[in-house]
């Protein structure tokens, strides 16, 4: 054939159909794809090897084949996850895999499927005190609204992205971009977001966030007042007054209860802002990306003139932010005006200590979704029984082997930390909706009693035999082993 195809097309030779496959697409079989110009088999499903401890090496399947005795031994514990399990097309079994295995003498069944979630989204916890934008404001990706700013948490800003309304309730482009944003965040990729009347940020799961081009290194040690309480003793005698600048509560050593207890003398300092209790000030400035999550770039802007009847020349003043990232040292001149000087060695340690006590700032991504009627029907003929079973902790829910927290109340609404899941665990369908792995593990007898598809239960050894479709991963050491349910609500 003399047809000319673009260079991003390859020809598959896995079968005589010899499909031409474009980059990013699959052939007629849906099993082989062109991934970056390479022919790859795209339907592996992930097996988690239980790691005894951190660093257990990956065990290639072939090496163990000869010794496989069909039982789950103590050192060869394998859990089949739903990643790449496929949905139920072409459909000849209710869920792609219903796997039985025996653990400690109990016959367990794991129903493995890739759920298609139109009701889903991510919650981002961004460890920063910088002001990202007013609560309730829209968060945009590629100009499309994909979520909003939610209520702030201690030391962290919260974004709520996705959800059915952005996915399917808006324009086509909004749905597509929302789906893409969620998919990238769930698969650990970096995403650029812009908040209306707020900051531009770059975030990725378990990576430090970047706010307006500046990489966030640390969380604040506490609010300004808390920082005074924590470090008052180290400052006492080495400096006359300390102001810890913070967007929430700015603390002043000489006025603060902690300073009083240590006998710190009044300094005549005067702060712009709303005084809450002695030494604690709200709203010293606008929220922003400067000092301590405020808009401040010059810390002296929050000071009014020192009271001349109390202050004295050469008075020593330290101003520091709640992360220790910003600091300045001043001494008053003869007319009681602060003059910046180098930070004395005696104070360097305390500033370093603030920094040290700040945990690394990360963006954490929780995937949140509801397992609806049709997904549950793949598990049992009577879907509500599955819900009840999950609520009663008889059924353990995992996503790619990672524990899922099941929100109390109706339905199966779950949350899972995407960083605990194997990489590239998520996919999408153009509906648009996310495809996420979900596994339900329960006793075989319980499975039968909730109307499970018992005819479709396959022994683990048989699933393992289909080795050309499998990838093996060592389970993350922090994750509880999915086949060993711990008692507790939702199995998390």
């Amino acid at each position, binding site marked *: 054939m003399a047809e000319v*195809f673009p260079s991003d*097309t390859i020809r598959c*030779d*896995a*079968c*005589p*159909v*010899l*499909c*031409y*496959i*474009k980059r990013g*697409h699959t*052939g*007629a*079989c*849906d099993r082989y794809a062109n991934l970056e110009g390479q022919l790859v088999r795209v339907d592996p499903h992930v097996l988690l090897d239980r790691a005894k401890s951190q660093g257990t090496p990956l065990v290639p399947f072939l090496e163990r084949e000869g010794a496989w005795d069909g039982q789950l031994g103590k050192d060869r514990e394998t859990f089949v996850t739903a990643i790449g399990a496929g*949905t*139920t*097309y*072409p*459909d*000849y*079994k*209710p*869920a792609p895999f219903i796997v039985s295995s025996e653990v400690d003498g109990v016959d367990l069944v794991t129903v493995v499927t890739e759920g*298609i979630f139109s009701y889903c989204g991510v919650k981002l916890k961004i460890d920063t005190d910088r002001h990202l934008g007013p609560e309730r404001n829209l968060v945009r990706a590629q100009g499309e609204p994909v979520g909003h700013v939610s209520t702030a948490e201690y030391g962290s800003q919260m974004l709520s992205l996705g959800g059915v309304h952005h996915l*399917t*309730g808006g324009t*086509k482009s909004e*749905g597509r971009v929302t789906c893409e944003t969620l998919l990238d965040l769930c698969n650990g990729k970096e995403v650029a977001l812009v908040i209306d009347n707020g900051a531009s940020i770059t975030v990725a799961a378990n990576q430090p966030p970047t706010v307006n081009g500046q990489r966030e290194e640390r969380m604040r040690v506490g609010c300004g007042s808390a920082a005074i309480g924590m470090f008052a003793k180290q400052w006492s005698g080495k400096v006359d007054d300390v102001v810890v600048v913070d967007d929430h509560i700015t603390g002043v050593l000489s006025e603060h209860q902690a300073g009083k207890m240590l006998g710190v003398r009044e300094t005549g300092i005067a702060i712009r802002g709303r005084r809450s209790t002695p030494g604690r000030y709200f709203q010293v400035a606008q929220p922003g990306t400067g000092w301590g999550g405020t808009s401040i770039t010059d810390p002296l802007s929050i000071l009014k003139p020192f009271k001349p009847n109390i202050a004295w020349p050469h008075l020593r003043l330290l101003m520091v932010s709640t992360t220790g990232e910003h600091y300045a040292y001043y001494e008053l001149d003869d007319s009681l005006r602060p003059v910046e000087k180098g930070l004395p060695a005696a104070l360097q340690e305390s500033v370093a200590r603030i920094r040290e006590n700040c945990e690394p700032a990360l963006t954490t991504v929780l995937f949140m979704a509801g397992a609806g*009627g*049709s*997904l549950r*029907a*793949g598990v049992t*003929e009577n879907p509500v029984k599955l819900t009840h079973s999950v609520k009663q902790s008889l059924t353990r829910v995992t996503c790619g082997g990672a524990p899922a927290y099941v929100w109390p109340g109706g339905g199966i609404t779950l949350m899972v930390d995407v960083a605990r899941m194997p990489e590239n665990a998520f996919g999408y*369908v*153009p*509906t*648009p909706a996310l495809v996420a792995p979900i596994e339900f593990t329960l006793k075989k007898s319980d499975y039968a009693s909730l109307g499970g*598809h018992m*005819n*479709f*239960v*396959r*022994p683990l050894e*048989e699933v393992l035999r289909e080795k050309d479709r499998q990838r093996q991963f060592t389970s993350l050491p922090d994750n509880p082993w999915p086949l060993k349910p711990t008692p507790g609500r939702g199995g998390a």
Partner: protein
Amino acid sequence: MREPALIQMLADGRRLHLHDGPIDLIVHADGDTAFVDRAYRAAAVRFVTILHELCGELPVLRARVGHEKPHGAVARSMFAAVTPYCPDRFITPMAAVAGAVAEAVLAAMTQAAELERAYVNNGGDIAIHLAPGRSYTVGMVERPEAVSLFGSVEIPAESAVRGIATSGWRGRSFSLGIADAVTILAKTAAEADAAATMVANEVDLAGHPAIRRVPACEIAPDSDLGDLPVTRAVGLLSPHDIARALDDGSRYAESLCAGRRIHSAALCLQGDVRTVTITDRPGRSPLPPSNTLPQFPSRSLWHA
């Protein structure tokens, strides 16, 4: 690297799984154990050459039906199944490939042994065999990726139906329409397969902004559909639009029923279901009435 055809029994020890390239068959037969065994062997023997036979004639099979006829047995049944559509619609023999393959394997089985019941399920396109007095119950799902049954159909031996097929834009093959699924009952699996493709194409809303279409060749360069726009995404539609699209599809399905090309059709679009069946024949329709949710069937046969 050429992957060999796969021939194995499924875990239940009852069903045979045959896989080669894009063909994936689930085979089941009921009857005397020795006969079932003989039938499965015959199925495997027939199966291993099918993909090669078809690939030898791919250019003809991928071309719009015209004067050039293919030679192989399966290819000829594909060609025969699509020919009735070609005067007024675009169709290639590939529209019937899945059903024709299922039929050919089933024929090999029934020639080899006497069976009570048997089916060959080729990814949702199914050929069935029924001895007198036997029947199959078929469960239907509207979205292949989410198994929930919207209905079930009982096919008794005395019915003329021996083929079932489903088509829709969510399936593995491209569709020019927007139906989530169209399930067809017809005399043969190849005929059902061709009809499902054509009826699914007719469930459509031309120019609707919520529908994303892409020329087939942009996704699969060697698609038999060339640069025809195939459906890639369908946004939420208003009840009015859903009804309009289903009206068009149903009208076309009714014309196929009237011409005796199919026995019944079930059309699904965003939760709405329409059924159409041959009406001028005495006896109860094998399809449930529109928009009713019948009891879950016994799982003797599932398809997407």
